[in-house]
């Protein structure tokens, strides 16, 4: 579970690499391991089956050799003379005995040692307290005394026997190892015991037989007497006195692996001996070892190569995501400048694309909000400035001054009251929206005060249906336009008439300010209209700042469907403000939304 948690927290690249390792390298490693094991196992079994067969053949040859030697005394029966010597007992003339000794030994030498290509070291005949010997090498031991002992035991057993060098005191020069084969001699005609013949067989014949074995030089070949565990022959010529414990070989005929060695064993010489073949497995399986090394190297190369490849793939997958993450981080820090290059059309590419879109969108939105907010503040500041325009106040105060000098008390009171109302309207700063009625009242106030100043040069008229007066509109949208009309109208003409009309369509409120002034200069008008059709907030300060400010505010508040239109008629200019026909509640929520936006920015 810890692992699960850990895994979940790993980076995508590590996850991919780990999954790859689990899914690819481990199965491949296991597969390789199992194939190799099966292969080795098969090879071992094959050799394991081969070795006993090979041993069995060698064992049969050894058997044959031993059997041949065991059958050799038969040659003695072919010489009637020799049998006759053996039939003699030892009580006779010394000269005669010596003569017989000579005859017998010469016969043994010629027909046993020199006549055959056998590996006989010597032949001994024990008969009736006499010893006849013929050897190929000098020897010591094996005197008459022992003759009786071995002779008797053989007479009882009535069969051949095999003795090892440890059993007798017979020693040949060079300490040659031998198998001493004892065969009883029987007088066939009289069916009586004549004596015993011992044939010393040089064990090196085993060498010759096993010389054809695979890896002969590396292998250790032993001939072991089963019952006593004594070693009769050892190709490695290690301590020959050592006794091999019984349990060392779990089977009688077959092969097994032990201590890194392959051991083959098969019974030999009438099942009384065991022919053993031991070979270190690394010698035997040198090729397999080589194959294994090569496979491991190839496997490692495969792992390295595939890890590189996979790292590359994983990097390719994770890197764009990482770049996205980094980019998001920088966006978090407020930097919206960079978008990411889209290099691929895969999921990650599409994700990057969407992300880029989003970034652009967010950037634009922020820009828009930011500018709206800026304009708003500018507008408010302007409106504020408008309201407490020192020019306006100065002019008004001058008008009041004239009125006081003229003694028109009532008029003064009127002006001051109106001005006071205007100032209060202006000072009510927290409110951005007012009812249409209030806005109209304010513009009427403004016009009234101007009329005090200009008398007949300015005339005006407002017309509006009752219902629409409750509609909420942004504050100070009429005054800048009216101000404009007065300013440009009175610059060129002696008098001006301003007509303000309000009417409504099912979903729109249209405020029309019509004057009979000079109208817009065509170039200025084109420029203005261009400006008004632009996105809100990108306007520059111009002569008609008041007009564009109003248009901007409307657009920012209600969208591009609303705004300001300009028109030159026969007598002057007409400005129309298009506003949505909305009720208080909607306006309120709009206001709240806007405020929220503000704060977030």
């Amino acid at each position, binding site marked *: 579970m810890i*692992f699960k948690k850990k895994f979940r927290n790993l980076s995508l690249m590590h996850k991919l690499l780990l999954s790859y390792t*689990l899914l690819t390298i*481990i199965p491949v490693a*296991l597969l390789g*391991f199992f194939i190799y*094991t099966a292969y080795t196992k098969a090879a*071992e*079994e094959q*050799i*394991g*089956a081969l*070795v*006993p*067969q090979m041993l*069995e053949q060698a064992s049969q040859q050894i058997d044959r050799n031993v059997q041949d030697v065991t*059958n050799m005394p*038969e040659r003695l*029966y072919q010489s009637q003379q020799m049998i*006759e010597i053996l*039939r003699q007992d030892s009580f006779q003339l010394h000269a005669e005995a010596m003569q017989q000794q000579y005859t017998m030994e010469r016969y043994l030498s010629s027909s046993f040692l020199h006549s055959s290509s056998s590996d006989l070291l010597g032949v001994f005949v024990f008969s009736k307290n006499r010893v006849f010997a013929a050897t190929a090498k000098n020897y010591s031991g094996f005197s008459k005394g022992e003759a009786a002992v071995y002779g008797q035991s053989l007479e009882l057993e*009535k069969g051949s026997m095999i003795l090892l060098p440890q059993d007798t005191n017979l020693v040949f020069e060079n300490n040659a190892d031998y198998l001493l084969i004892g065969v009883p001699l*029987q007088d*066939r*005609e*009289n*069916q*009586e015991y004549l004596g015993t013949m011992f044939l010393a067989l040089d064990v090196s014949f085993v060498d010759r037989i096993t010389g054809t074995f695979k890896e002969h030089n590396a292998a250790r070949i032993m001939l072991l007497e089963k019952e006593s565990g004594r070693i009769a022959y050892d190709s490695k010529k290690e301590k020959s006195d050592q006794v091999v414990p019984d349990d060392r070989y*779990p*089977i*009688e*005929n*077959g*092969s*097994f*692996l*032990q*201590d*890194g060695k*392959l051991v083959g064993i*098969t*019974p030999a010489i*009438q*099942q009384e001996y065991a022919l053993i073949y031991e070979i270190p497995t690394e010698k035997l399986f040198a090729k397999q070892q080589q194959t294994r090394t090569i496979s491991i190297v190839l496997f490692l190369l495969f792992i390295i190569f595939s890890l590189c490849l996979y790292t590359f793939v994983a990097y390719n997958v994770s890197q764009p995501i990482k770049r996205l993450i980094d980019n998001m981080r920088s966006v978090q820090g407020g930097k919206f400048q960079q978008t990411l290059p889209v290099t691929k059309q895969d999921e990650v590419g599409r994700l990057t694309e969407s992300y880029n879109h989003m970034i652009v969108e967010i950037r634009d939105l922020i820009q828009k909000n930011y500018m709206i907010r800026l304009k708003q503040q500018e507008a408010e500041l302007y409106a504020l400035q408008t309201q407490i325009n020192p020019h306006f106040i100065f002019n008004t105060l001058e008008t009041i001054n004239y009125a006081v000098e003229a003694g028109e008390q009532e008029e003064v009171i009127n002006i001051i009251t109106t001005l006071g109302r205007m100032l209060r309207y202006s000072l009510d700063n927290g409110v951005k929206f007012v009812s249409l009625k209030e806005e109209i009242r304010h513009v009427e106030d403004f016009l009234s005060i101007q009329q005090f100043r200009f008398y007949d040069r300015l005339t005006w008229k407002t017309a509006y249906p009752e219902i629409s007066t409750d509609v909420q509109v942004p504050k100070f949208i009429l005054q800048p336009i009216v101000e404009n009309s007065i300013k440009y109208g009175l610059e060129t003409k002696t008098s001006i008439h301003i007509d303000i009309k309000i009417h409504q369509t099912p979903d729109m409120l249209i405020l029309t300010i019509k004057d009979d002034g000079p109208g817009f200069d065509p170039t200025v008008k084109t420029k203005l209209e261009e400006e008004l059709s632009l996105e809100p907030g990108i306007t520059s300060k111009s002569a008609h700042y008041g007009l564009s400010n109003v248009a901007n505010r409307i657009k920012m508040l209600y969208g591009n469907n609303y705004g300001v239109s300009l028109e030159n008629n026969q007598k002057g200019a007409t400005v129309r403000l298009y506003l949505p026909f909305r009720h208080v509640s909607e306006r309120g929520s709009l206001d709240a939304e806007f405020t929220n936006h503000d704060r977030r920015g």
Partner: protein
Amino acid sequence: MQKKSLVLLILLIFVSACNKKEILYVQETPPSESHPEQTEQIDIAIVPKVMEIPYFQAVQQGVEEAAKSSGATVHFKGPTTADPAQQEEIIRTFIKQKVDVLAVSVIDPDRLSPVLIEARRQGITVLTWDADAHPEARDYFINMVDAEMLGEHLLDSLAAQIGEEGEYIILSGSQSSLNQEEWLHWIKQHNRAYYPNLILREVAYTNDSPVTAYQESKRVVKAFPDLKGIIGIASLGPPAAAAVLKEENVSNDIVIVGLASPRDMNAHLKEGDVRGITLWSPKKLGYLTVMIAKLMQDGTVIEDGMFIEDVGRIQVKGEQIIMGEPIDFTAENVDQYDF
């Protein structure tokens, strides 16, 4: 990471398993040919021609030796005189006892073959030794020597001693004895081929009786005054003839060769009355007979050149097993043989 170590652990277990003794292959040990365990005791019946003559007594000794070394139960019983009827009776008794092998030295093949055939029909292995029956009546005939070789050898010995010319007679056992007839045939054949001056005057028969042998010897010595030699091809012949020659005091004029126990001829050889006689070892014959019986009962195929323990190599010619070469006994070596 833990999973990785787990995998490693598993791999380690796999690898460590290789260090124990792992048996790769077990070969079936071929059944040892040397001593198949004796599952049932086998009964071998040996029937000689007669019981109480030295030749068959020696056979009996060999039989007993063989019984000891082979572990088989051996019955040795023959007629008191060489009477075919008596021998038949004994054979019938053995058939009733359901012996496994019956080995007979057949007195009269014509008389005895039927009963031997009957024995074979009852599943008994029938051997003949020393003297053969008709071929269909037995599985093998154990012959002591090769007939042709023996016949030639006997005639050669005689010819050498009498200078290849003169008259001689042959003392055989009985006309019904097939192998004696065969030897006779080969002697005659050899005579015709090589010794035109040797003349065979008569073939006399001892009927395997010492008395008859003596009487017949006496008769022929008297009947043929120019007689130079006697060939005895039944073991009772030469001793009886030697005794007769000694009585008649013609030992130096008439040469005796033939088949006889060395023990019977010991005195004659040493005194110089007889220079040499020939025989095989009846002990060995008895021993071989039992061994062959045993081997056949064990299911061994009898082959030419086969080695029989304490006997040597045997020859096999068809259904005839030949034991070996004959031995010549002289004054020098006669003491070495105790039969």
